[in-house]
């Protein structure tokens, strides 16, 4: 039984202890995966930084039947495999430094003919940040733009959920663990939906646990498969800044939603703008950056709704913002008593115009 090239690549990418650096050295020395497969222990030991443990790992895995079986098993789990040089490997990734050697994915890979935007930001997101992320995700999807992100809590998940809310659009999640692991677990619903409407992508073999060190590396793939990077609510030491840095290095446009200068949640975002990133206030700015023709009429939901509201509802609605406020604050601002305010707010919530972001804390819903 003979192995195909893809099996050799699969074998090399799954050896425990052999990461991108050692793999690079092996390939440099031997030239091809097949050569490494057939190399003797003496030859292997001549390669720089390959130790006895690594050699044992390489030698012990040289079972053609087992490789084929495990590859078949992986396929039957719905996990697909591609590698650099393979015809379905995302073209955009050839242009980045340290492009991933191989990709495991569930679902599909990004469509190269379509534009895609990476949406990244804080995990401990404020209500307004998550609303903006979700709105941007949705509007990008409405304009046929693919959304790439990391399925993390906060901005990532909100943007991807927003994108998923539009049927037919695709969103991609690049993981820092194996594609068969949903991390963080709370996003399982989104994780399942993405498999059907886009793809879960990872350069790590299935079963790889979410190790902290993997996460900064996956950011280069997020930016790599995208045409520009949208940063929402990045704090001072946010991981999104790493993605933005990769993006800048890869020559992608960095787009940033600005924030209050006194708010530490926006420290990183504002710093990016200071460093020359483009400032984004609505979807049009992103479409401009992508250089695509778009439908310029942004639907202003607010005005449409206000027509159908009673006077008191309008008053209360006007006093709401994206930052959650307590009922008593809203009552004080709108000059109504608390009971009436509460009654109006509940009415507005039932009309899906406001959202409760904590007990008795209300904010606008977009």
């Amino acid at each position, binding site marked *: 039984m003979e192995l195909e090239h893809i099996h050799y690549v699969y074998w090399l990418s799954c050896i425990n202890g052999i990461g991108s650096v050692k793999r690079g050295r092996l390939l440099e020395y031997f030239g091809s995966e097949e050569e490494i497969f057939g190399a003797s222990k003496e030859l292997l030991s001549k390669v720089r930084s390959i130790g006895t443990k690594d050699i044992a790992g390489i030698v012990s895995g040289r079972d053609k039947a087992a490789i084929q079986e495990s590859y078949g098993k992986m396929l039957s789990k719905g996990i697909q495999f591609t590698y650099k040089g393979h015809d379905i490997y995302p073209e955009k990734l050839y242009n980045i430094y340290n492009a991933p050697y191989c990709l495991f994915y569930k679902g599909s890979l990004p469509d190269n003919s379509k534009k895609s935007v990476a949406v990244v930001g804080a*995990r*401990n*997101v*404020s*209500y307004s*940040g*998550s*609303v903006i992320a*979700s709105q941007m995700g949705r509007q990008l999807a409405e304009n046929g733009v693919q959304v790439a992100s990391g399925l993390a*809590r906060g901005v990532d998940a*909100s943007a991807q959920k927003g994108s998923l809310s539009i049927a037919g659009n695709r969103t991609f999640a690049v993981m820092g663990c194996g594609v068969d692991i949903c991390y963080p677990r709370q996003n399982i619903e989104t994780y399942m939906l993405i498999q059907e409407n886009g793809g879960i992508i990872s350069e790590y073999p299935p079963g790889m646990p979410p190790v902290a060190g993997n996460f900064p590396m996956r950011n280069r793939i997020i930016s790599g498969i995208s045409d520009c990077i949208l940063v929402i609510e990045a704090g001072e030491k946010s991981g999104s800044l790493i993605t933005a840095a990769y993006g800048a290095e890869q020559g992608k446009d960095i787009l940033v939603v600005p924030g209050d200068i006194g*708010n*530490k*949640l926006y420290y990183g975002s504002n710093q990016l703008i200071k460093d020359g990133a483009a400032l984004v206030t609505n979807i049009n700015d992103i479409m401009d950056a992508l250089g695509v023709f778009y439908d310029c009429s942004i639907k202003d939901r607010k005005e449409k709704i206000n027509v159908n509201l009673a006077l008191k509802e309008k008053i209360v609605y006007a006093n709401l913002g994206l930052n*959650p406020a*307590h*009922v*008593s*604050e809203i009552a004080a601002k709108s000059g109504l008593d*608390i*009971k*009436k305010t*509460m*009654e109006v707010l*509940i009415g507005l*919530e*039932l009309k899906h115009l406001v*959202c*409760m*972001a*904590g*007990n*008795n*804390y209300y904010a606008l*819903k*977009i």
Partner: protein
Amino acid sequence: MYSEAYSAVIQGIEGCIIHAEADVSDGLPCFLLVGCLSSEVKEARERVRIALKNSGFKIPPKKITINLSPAGIRKDGTCYDLAVAVAILSALGIINRELLHKAVLIGELGFDGKLKSVNGVLPMVSTACENGIRYCLVPKDNVEEAMFADGTDIIGVDSLNEAVSILNSTHPERYAVRAEGGMPGKTGNTQSTLIPDFASITGQDVACRAAEVAVSGMHNFLIIGPPGTGKTMIAKRIAGIMPKMQPDECMEVSKVYSVSGLLTKDMPVITDRPYRAPHHTVTQAALAGGGRYPKPGEISLASGGVLFLDELPEFNRQTLEVLRQPLEDGWVNVSRLDGSCRYPAKCMLVAAMNPCRCGFYPDRKKCTCTPLQVKSYLGRISTPLLDRIDICTETVQLKLNEIYLDNDIKDCHKKRNSTSEEIRKRVLQTQEIQKDRYKNENFSFNSCLTPSDIKKYCTLAPEAKDFLECISEGMSFSIRAYHKILKAGRTIADIEQKSLIEKSHIAEAVCYRSINSKYWGEGQA
């Protein structure tokens, strides 16, 4: 030569009459004390012997045996010394036996023959009344407390010699202490001067109003808010807006305090509603009552008033679980080897907590907690306990100008919070409505409504019915949350003296619903 005198023993917060039987007979000289005694009672032998000697009485070299009967009840405490001494003196013929069957003798003896104060005098004296005893001889320091029980002559005694002369007199009632100007608590003219006033709270209208609603229906109450926003301030004032205690309530609460030894000369009876705020390191036994020889816990000491648990999530989970049954029943049963006692626990639970570990959620500018941390912080409180809390409110951070606006009278266009006195009047009115409505039931507050009672008593106006249905569907309430809203709505309607629960009442009640994990940590679009 046999004689007996009466004393009393404490069981729970009730007393029980016991007989001190003394027998002086020939034999090897000795002094024996029997009858299921704890060590401090056994030591009474030495105290009594020396007190008798130092009071000028000569103990003959005979076999003296004393039995505290009924011998099946365990006796502890030091209140039998006087009865034991008197029984011996009577057996020796020094004291006239005539009066001994009409008197209960309570007090600890010192070596000099002086009488010292003891705990639990009030329940003992009131038991004496119930048993038709005419005279109660109590230590001078306990007289005020004992006076609170009606129906018996209280005689304050300073020393053993004085007791002897009183018991030998033909008109012992001449020594009885007479109340002058009425007893505190009985005349109902007490002033709750110690409890701070609601008017001194600036802002926090929502929380103050919620407190009023909670007290009106005696609902358990939870305050959530960032640190330093007045949660404790509100809790401290809640006892002050409860209606004044009725004499029977005073009696019950005072008995608990008497048994715990918390009554002093300055405060011989409890007339103000108690406020107890145990620290969160409190143990189960200290909270619910317990110990080898049971003592009332904080929940009983707070009976009739407020039990305030500050920093609720910091309390040990197991400790809080013990509150569940007493809060439901209004009683706590403490069973131990030597029998079980029943203590009252009719308190209103007031709890306070921060919304998350750092205290600022959902203000993301200040809160550094992850959603998971927020959730786990809230998860520390057990759901069964939360289920017993009907009303929940938030305090909010005030801006500086809001704090100082009220103090400047010229700018005082903002409405001032009501004073405790004003609120109390409204509360009293609301509670009267409830008592009247539930006169045929075995409860008198809206908080006690069971689901079947809710159907019976919480009638909604048609408009309110549609509204509530709409909300409970839109916000996916559980059945329990639905019931709590109806209970709170009933109280709010009672405050406004409406027989039907209206839409605005429901809207306000929804505002007071308990924390729901759905809205914490996941309140994102």
